[in-house]
């Protein structure tokens, strides 16, 4: 049983690689579609080129970064309330 479990990390890495490639593939398709499909926006800025993509990408980075800062302030040991 030790052989499969020692293989698992590489399995996970392989899965990660497939996942990343699939994401990039979809991202390229979405990039291409941007030239053909007119997206309706609530404000004109939202209709600018690849706006939702940029918004999603930056929002995600922002959330994670704020989370890291928040950790410094509000993270405590597991037995804090005990």
């Amino acid at each position: 049983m030790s052989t499969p479990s020692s293989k698992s990390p590489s399995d996970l890495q392989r899965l990660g690689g497939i996942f990343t490639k699939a994401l990039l593939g979809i991202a390229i398709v979405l990039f291409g579609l941007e030239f053909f499909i007119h997206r309706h926006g609530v404000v004109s800025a939202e209709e600018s080129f690849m706006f939702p993509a940029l918004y999603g990408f930056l929002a995600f980075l922002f959330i994670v970064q704020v989370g890291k800062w928040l950790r410094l302030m509000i993270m405590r040991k597991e037995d804090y309330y005990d």
Partner: protein
Amino acid sequence: MISHMPPGLIMILAAFLLPVIPHVWRQIYMLGAIALSAYGLFLGAGTHLVWAVLGLDLILYQADALSLPFAIIFHLAAALNVIYSWHDRDWQQHCASLSYAGAAIAALHAGDLVSLFVWWEATAVTSVFLILASGTERARKAAMRYLLFQVTSGVLLLAGAAILASTSGDIRFTKMDLGDAATWLIFIAFGIKAAFPFLNGWLQDAYPEATPTGTVALSAFTTKLAIYALARGFPGTDILIWIGAAMTALPVFFAVIENDLRRVLAFSLNNQLGFMVVAVGIGTELALNGAVAHAFVHIIYKALLFMSMGAVLHQVGTIKASELGGLYKKMPFTMVCCIIGAMSISAFPLFSGFVAKSLTMSALGDAGIIWAYFVLLFASAGVLEHSGIKIPYFAFFAHDSKIETGEAPIGMRVAMGIAAFLCVGIGVFPSLLYSILPYAVDYHPYDAGHVTSQMQLLIFAMLAFVVLVRLKLYPPEIPSVVLNSDWFYRRLAPMVGLPLLRMVMLVWSGLLQQMRGLVNAIWDKLDRIMHSPLAGPTVSGRAVLIQAGLLTLLLLIAYAAAG
């Protein structure tokens, strides 16, 4: 006869027999009770049962287009929960979850505020047993804090109803305008159960402490009952847009750093409630449809996510992200269901979250509330982060935790399968959901522009995740506690309150000591007078001396009055 009973009541009555019914039959019996209760919905819209008592007309069974979708999904959630807990022999938990669901369903059909109060409190006292059932000291304490908040909510609701009854004499549960004390009390009562900012501590505190099956039941009813109550009582109340927007955005940051995956889902639940609260705040027909549709699909995918994490907890014994990982091979079915739940909550096209959330976003755009629109768009990326990626990633992938386990019991898998099927079914055929919404719908979520917008947002947010993981910038999971608004009463209040209490006690005991000294001094003086009087015989005791003193005083008063 049964059809005229308020739906849900039959489930509460049925719960009384559960202890004497053997296992497995008990589950079939519970499904029967839920079906009978659901049968009552066929009576249709209207007022079906009124009870005149103590000069009040209690409307026990009233149904309309708003209560129906909630009633349908509450019954469905109750049935799913029975299937999910099929393996569980603990009749107390089944008793609690069946009567809890029954109380929530009965509350949906209460036409007046006093009846609503009764069921409102009933949901509190029944659901608390699902937390207590964990059997740990930690759970017991969380359960007590939970009960305190739930009962407070009920008391505020009753206070508001009492003021309304005494001022206008009208306790019917209809649309209210926020203004006087009564409506504010009721609004805050609803706000506690809807987990408004700073009133939300109980949710993240207590839900993750319940049993694996208990949390699934808890996730469905209390908070969505509050959304229903807000939609009926306060549609179009502007302040709800602000409150809701804060609810969507703030929990996102907490969820990123939380280690307990069921607690991450509790933060996520809070964030989802925000979308519904915003929709109720907009108050247009499209927005209210959005709130109801969101509540409907949310109950299914949130239950699915809690079920998948419950299955992991049931099999592995922990749900901490720092201890999990790599379970995709050991629990592939649970993993697939979890990802379907994750894609639904993230609002991927063809999944249920997309067709519901689109209604609210469109309503926001139509109403021209641009700032809230962008806050909710931001929160959508947040949902993807914590529920879409973090939950499945840390449980099933991330790294190999070397945990040896297998799939969850068959009942758990069947319930997850049904919920996953519904998530996809509603996403592909949204007209099924739209047909039961309160207002007629002419809405088409699947236009090319809308779908590509949503896909861009989600796919590029996921790419951000991949970039962070590859650059090792994504924060690792750390065994920890994240402080939330419950910190104010779990830490700050004792920190400030206990020294304050100690000081008061110190002053009080000092004061008592001084008083005692004064009394002793007086007695000493009296004794001296008794034993060595200036003239005449000695006095035999203190009582005689006091009596003599009082008589003298009386004599003086009598003289003064006569004079």
